[in-house]
């Protein structure tokens, strides 16, 4: 049934194509604009490429969060999902998985070419992607928990980045540090540890948020 929920999310996203493409386009535009703002010199760009890709990915993954549960909350679908026999935790986990498949995965695919365009040392592109894989998963988990917690709150859209971005700082720190290191094993393991912590905790928090939003 969890698979049916994820399938429903993907079908919806494909039908409303613009929503899911918007995050990737935002990522591309921010990455392409940064050299204009900083410096087009290959030496400078190569040093900053990892950071640019990470910040752009972090901001892009925030974009679809407000509608992740918001759309279902507004039209009553959230009640139907919570009454489908799935636990709130499972609903939250399914929606989180869909968010990663529709935002995190496309970002991961786009990150490689963007990093090369920004003159990142080709040897470090693999490390960047190795960090982005657990990184984008953790960002989806934290983001979904934040989105569920602000559900039903006034000014939720404004509150959401203020709640999610501070929680995402460890991911950003270790992700960018990994790209800068010659031996990034420790940083990559720390990213995996962050993912391991977020994996059970975030759906739990998101599930509680969904239940509270339905019961208010």
């Amino acid at each position, binding site marked *: 049934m969890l698979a049916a929920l994820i399938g429903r999310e993907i079908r919806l996203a494909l039908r409303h194509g613009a929503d899911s493409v918007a995050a990737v386009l935002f990522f591309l535009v921010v990455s392409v604009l940064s050299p204009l703002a900083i410096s087009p010199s290959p030496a400078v760009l190569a040093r900053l490429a990892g950071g640019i890709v990470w910040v752009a990915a972090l901001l892009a993954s925030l974009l679809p969060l407000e509608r992740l549960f918001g759309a279902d909350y507004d*039209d009553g*679908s959230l009640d139907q999902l919570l009454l489908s026999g799935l*636990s709130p935790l499972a609903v939250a986990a399914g929606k989180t998985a869909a968010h990663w498949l529709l935002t995190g995965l496309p970002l991961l695919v786009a990150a490689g070419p963007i990093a090369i365009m920004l003159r990142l040392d080709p040897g470090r592109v693999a490390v960047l992607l190795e960090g982005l894989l657990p990184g984008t998963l953790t960002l989806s988990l934290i983001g979904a928990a934040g989105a569920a917690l602000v559900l039903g709150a006034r000014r939720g859209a404004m509150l959401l980045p203020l709640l999610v971005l501070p929680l995402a700082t460890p991911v950003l720190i270790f992700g960018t540090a990994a790209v800068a290191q010659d031996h990034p094993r420790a940083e990559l393991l720390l990213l995996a540890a962050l993912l391991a912590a977020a994996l059970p905790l975030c759906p739990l928090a998101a599930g509680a948020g969904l239940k509270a939003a339905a019961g208010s």
Partner: protein
Amino acid sequence: MLQAEALAAIRGERLVLRDVSFTLRPGEALAVRGPNGAGKSTLLRLLAGLMRPAAGRLLWGGKDALDDPPLHARRLAYLGHQDAVKAGLTGAENLRFAARVSGGSVAQALALMELSALADLPVRLYSAGQKRRLALARVALSKAPLWLLDEPSNGLDAAAAASLGRLIEAQRERGGMVIAASHLPLALERAGELVLG
């Protein structure tokens, strides 16, 4: 058998329901009446397990129904005051997830609410009444023993209201229970009545 014992609900520091008690046996229906704001929707959300009662108990076959909300959810079909349909999906696609949950047939449910001709049309093109019929078709999919209907006849024309009546009759003949909230008189035959507010 569904039993409510002295249920109370608080919303936003206001007591909207107090001392609501009733018993519903298989095959019975209950019409919940009352003016706007009397707490009809709140009562249905409470019975669905979406909200926790501030006081009182809800019993299913003598046991506390809200001990295990996902289990209670499988015993019921809920029609909210919103239609919970997605504008970008077709009528049939909108029901697919619910069909997977309940194991019912989408085509049959659409036929019951006379939506077969619109099955492959995006819901964006539906009228308000047709959307309501689609939401009712989702309830018709369900084989759950308890139906909770919040203003089911909203926006329906005479023919659709008659389909709704047949749907409710069929559910009761199967031994199912129906609780419908409406501020207008609803054509429920041989139904108990609960007046709020």
